[in-house]
């Protein structure tokens, strides 16, 4: 681990001339002024002209706006309302370069986005029968099971099925770097209509079941040739009946059957409940452990799911499964703004509710042989409405950490709490600290009374990490702030992280006033953002960071609405 020491600290309070200029105060009333998000898409320094941009507002209506790129790779999405947006890029044959950040970047009107893309990898080969004849028009798909760093992906990514041609040749392109397994046959991710191999057990390359499938390591722009000897086995049937509560909508229930590999959901297949009583049926199911659940989306936008059930298919059909769906959880709450009367805070921009996002991050359960949980449904993030209220819908059962993001340098996240309701185990009226503990959601239940308090008086700290001699800064370098005051050690909201950019600059804002220790290090324990650093589950990682920072003895005191700039750290 590279070590840094704090060379000297300047506590000049008056000079605001640092990279992040002090924002001008914004009127509180919502304006109808529209604006743009612009940017550029490059690969190897060249414009990616077949890229397309999707700009999606973080709000209840998640309709996207789309923009093409011009000959220089530039794009502009015009006519956008004030708000928080996600910006995504796709280009046939290309993939986005991994950022290494675990926190999704949000953009606002006026922002500019730079995307770098890589040529995707290719897996190609032939599918042949037992007597080496080409298997024609069978669906083949590549399943990404590990990322480019060899880490298991939480949900295996299925790429679009490609069909073999008349010579039995398939070609899957635009693949992200990572580790893949490839399979042919069976009902795939996308429907091409009736296919003669739909009811077969998928054959994995080279001629295997899922358990013994060859793992294919694929780099960017790399092409691998993988042949499959097709087995065309019939497999077993899994059948049952799924129900939904009577309501205004006619249920069209989908049933999902996910293979469990080492306890974690792998590739899933889906089918539909045939009618109110006629049940569902999967055929071509290979021996193995599975998770099965039913779900349906009502026209009112609610998703209903059944409790997931683990089943084992071993040499026989599994029939008579009963799955009954219940609504997913809803979390409702409010943002509370606590302004400051201090002179130093006068005229500072206050957070705008339509740029304030609350995100629920589900705790990743360790994969075990006996436990498995439902995947997540939909986006667990939303902006507040004009009065600061928010509702997150369609949340899968599990434990969640709550994250709040807003745009106002001199405000900080003071607390996240929940008023316990009569139905919960805690005494009604008692307040639960959701910054320190996870929020537990169960099927068919909701959580209300969540309160996110934003207080005026946050401080900002910016500066430069210098190197000695010809040394260059390592990638993924972060500056962390940890509380120096003993009674705040357990408060996750007292911790902050900021990435050091390629030029050594860093900037941290929205810091609660107080005394802190500073530490600069590479992103150990995956603490690459406030989101992971402040997670209720990161208790041990924070404690470790705190001990390291304590030994460094580099302290900084931040006063309400103070802007500390020009901080210098030297790399040794």
């Amino acid at each position, binding site marked *: 681990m590279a070590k840094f020491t704090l060379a000297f600290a300047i506590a000049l309070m008056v000079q605001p001339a640092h990279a992040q200029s002090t924002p001008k105060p914004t009127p509180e009333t*919502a304006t*109808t002024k*529209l604006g743009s998000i612009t940017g550029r898409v490059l690969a190897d320094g060249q414009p990616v*002209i*077949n*890229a*397309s*941009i*999707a700009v999606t507002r973080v709000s209840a*209506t998640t*309709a*996207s*706006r*789309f*923009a*093409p*790129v*011009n*000959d220089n790779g530039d794009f502009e*999405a*015009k*006519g*956008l*309302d004030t708000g928080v947006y996600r910006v995504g890029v796709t280009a*046939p*044959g290309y993939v986005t370069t991994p950022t290494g950040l675990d926190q999704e970047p949000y953009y606002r009107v006026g922002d500019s986005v730079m995307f770098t893309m890589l040529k995707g990898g*290719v897996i190609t080969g032939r599918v042949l029968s037992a007597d080496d004849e080409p298997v*024609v*028009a069978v669906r083949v798909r590549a399943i990404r099971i590990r990322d480019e760093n060899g880490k298991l992906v939480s949900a295996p990514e299925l790429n679009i099925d490609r*069909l073999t*041609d*008349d010579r039995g040749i398939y*070609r899957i*392109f*635009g693949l992200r770097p990572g580790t893949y397994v490839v399979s042919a046959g069976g*009902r795939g991710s996308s*429907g*091409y*209509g*009736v*296919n*003669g*191999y*739909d*009811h077969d057990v998928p054959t994995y390359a080279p001629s295997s079941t899922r358990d013994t499938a060859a793992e294919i390591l694929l780099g960017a722009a790399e092409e691998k040739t993988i042949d499959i000897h097709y087995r065309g086995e019939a497999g077993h049937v899994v059948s049952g009946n799924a129900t939904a509560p*009577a309501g*205004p*909508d*006619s*249920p*069209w229930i989908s049933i999902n059957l996910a293979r469990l590999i080492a306890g974690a959901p792998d590739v899933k297949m889906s*089918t*539909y409940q*045939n*009618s*109110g009583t*006629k*049940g569902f*049926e999967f055929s071509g199911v290979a021996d193995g452990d599975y998770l099965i659940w039913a779900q349906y989306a009502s*026209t009112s936008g609610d998703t209903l799911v059944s409790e997931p059930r683990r089943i084992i298919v071993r040499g026989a059909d599994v029939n008579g499964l009963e799955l009954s769906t219940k609504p997913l959880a809803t979390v409702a709450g409010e943002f509370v703004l606590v302004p400051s009367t201090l002179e130093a805070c006068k005229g500072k921009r206050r957070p705008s509710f339509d740029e304030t996002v609350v995100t629920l991050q589900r705790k990743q359960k360790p994969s075990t042989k006996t436990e498995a949980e439902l995947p997540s449904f939909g986006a667990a993030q939303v902006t507040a409405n004009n009065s600061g209220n928010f509702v997150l819908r369609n949340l899968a059962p599990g434990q969640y950490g709550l994250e709040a993001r807003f745009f106002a340098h001199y405000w900080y996240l003071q607390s996240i709490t929940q008023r316990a309701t009569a139905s919960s185990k805690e005494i009604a009226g008692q307040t639960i600290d959701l910054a320190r503990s996870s929020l537990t959601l169960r099927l068919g239940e909701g959580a209300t009374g969540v309160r996110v308090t934003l207080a005026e008086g946050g401080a900002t700290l910016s500066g430069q990490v210098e190197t000695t001699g010809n040394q260059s800064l390592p990638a993924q370098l972060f500056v962390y702030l940890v509380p120096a005051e003993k009674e705040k050690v357990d408060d996750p909201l007292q911790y902050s992280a900021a990435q050091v950019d390629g030029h050594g600059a860093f900037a941290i804002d929205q810091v609660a006033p107080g005394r802190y220790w500073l530490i600069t290090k590479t992103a150990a324990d995956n603490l690459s953002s406030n989101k992971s650093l402040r997670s209720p589950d990161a208790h041990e990682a924070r404690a470790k960071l705190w001990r390291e920072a304590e030994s460094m003895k580099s302290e900084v005191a931040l006063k309400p609405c103070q802007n500390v700039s020009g901080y210098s750290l030297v790399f040794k």
Partner: protein
Amino acid sequence: MSSLPRSALIIALSLTCVYIVKSQDTRAKRGSITGRVIAANKGVAGVTVSISMSGDALSGGGLTLKSVTDDDGRFRISNLPAGTYYVWPFAPASVVAEATGVSPQGKVVALAEAETVEDVDFHLTPGAVITGRVTDAAGRPVIDERIRLLPVGADVRRLTSSIYPGINDIRTDDRGVYRIFGLPAGKYKVSIGDEYGAFTSTKGRRFFPRTFHPDVAEEAKAEVVEVTEGGEATNVDITVARSMTGFSASGRFIDAENGQPVPNISFGLTIIVGGRPSGFMSGNGVSTSDGGFRIDNLPPGRYAVSILPRSGSVFYGESSAFDITDGDVTDLEAKVHRGALISGNVVIEGSPDRSVLARLAQARVETVMWAEGANIGTVNYTNINPDGSFQVGPLQAGKATLRLSSADRNVPAEFALLSVDLNGVDKSPGIQVTAGENISGVRLVVGYGTGTIRGSVRGEGGALSPDIYVYVALVRPGNALTITSTRNDARGRFVFERVPPGNYEVVVTAYLDNNKRVTARQPVVTSDGAITEVTFTLNLNEAPTPKP
């Protein structure tokens, strides 16, 4: 064939699903379908033959049962309940002589209880291949773009319907290479880029000007590619000009009543080709806080911006048509109106028992809305309340056709709609509604029963050629409403099941060459559990030209 536009619409809206034929009544006697897959007068082994139930096949998914041919090319699918089936061999590299050119593909077999239908044969010939590469002017591969194949000649066009998965699914790979196989011998033109480019360009993709092999814009100048049976045409390359970006259309949604801008409206784009709305695409966004809408990257063409049907909005409306030529179009105004409501009751004919009434919850009211001036309808589904009442809306001004459908989209409705009336007037052809209007008292009379009407259609000289399409409709005497319809199978037979007791007319219409048709009708009486037979003998020589 007045029913065709509607059924085409339903297909477009259906999603993929699987329906598995399951035993509902184990006492029912089962039937079988057998046949042979033949190539060069010999049986072909190892071909998967699939069978799907009529209606189900329309949904695009439905591989229901399958059989693999034996060494002599024979297949047998057994244990089938009575019904109408589509049978089709999965032979993607071959051309199936029995390709009909209509969807769903396959031979139609109307199977009676405990019947075995034999000789459902299929004839295969080796398919041809056309392959090539698409590059832009700079020599770069054109990746993941759709290739369009134009068959030259009507016969070839019919057989191209056997291309798997479909003639619209041919795309270039990361090298710009495409490969089309299973083609009938014949002549073709190959092109890239098309007049519906807005479907992908408004999702942010650049588009290519329509270009035929080898590098020409005009179809007349396209080089014709000819392939023989089992032959392969290679290097059918296309060089396109640089991809282009389009122009934007922007404007505002204005409430027609008070002139105020309307925010938060989900809108879509209507593509107008040849003066007619030819495509509608959704997912273009939501109007901004000042009622503004904007769609970027439109290729030159004629368009309109409209409120998305079923968006949950009480409004409907669209902009007037506008042209994109060589610049952005701004300041469009889309006047929006409050929708109309239709309410009424579903009434069950006769005096059905309570279990039948309870099953009404599995049915829905299906409304096809034909907006004024539009020739694309939109479909809405409304649930029926336990007391039989329903309310449909908000609807735009135009004609609303009310029907009954199954709440579970992938099974046929249990109930038959017998009449639609408003104050005693037959409204089955549709109800005219104006903006903001409330229409109440619509009666949907439905029947429930277990009668079967089975029939056959033949010519005066003998069996009809299976190539002749015969539309068979079931109606009540004196009522225009088609209760249900089907078509002739390969043997000239048809069947209606779950027919409520009562008096009916069966109307058959044979569609002949030269746009001529022959119609005949016969009265039929049915009761619960009864099987009624009806036979039609058509004089095909007395076919009048249909009235326009």
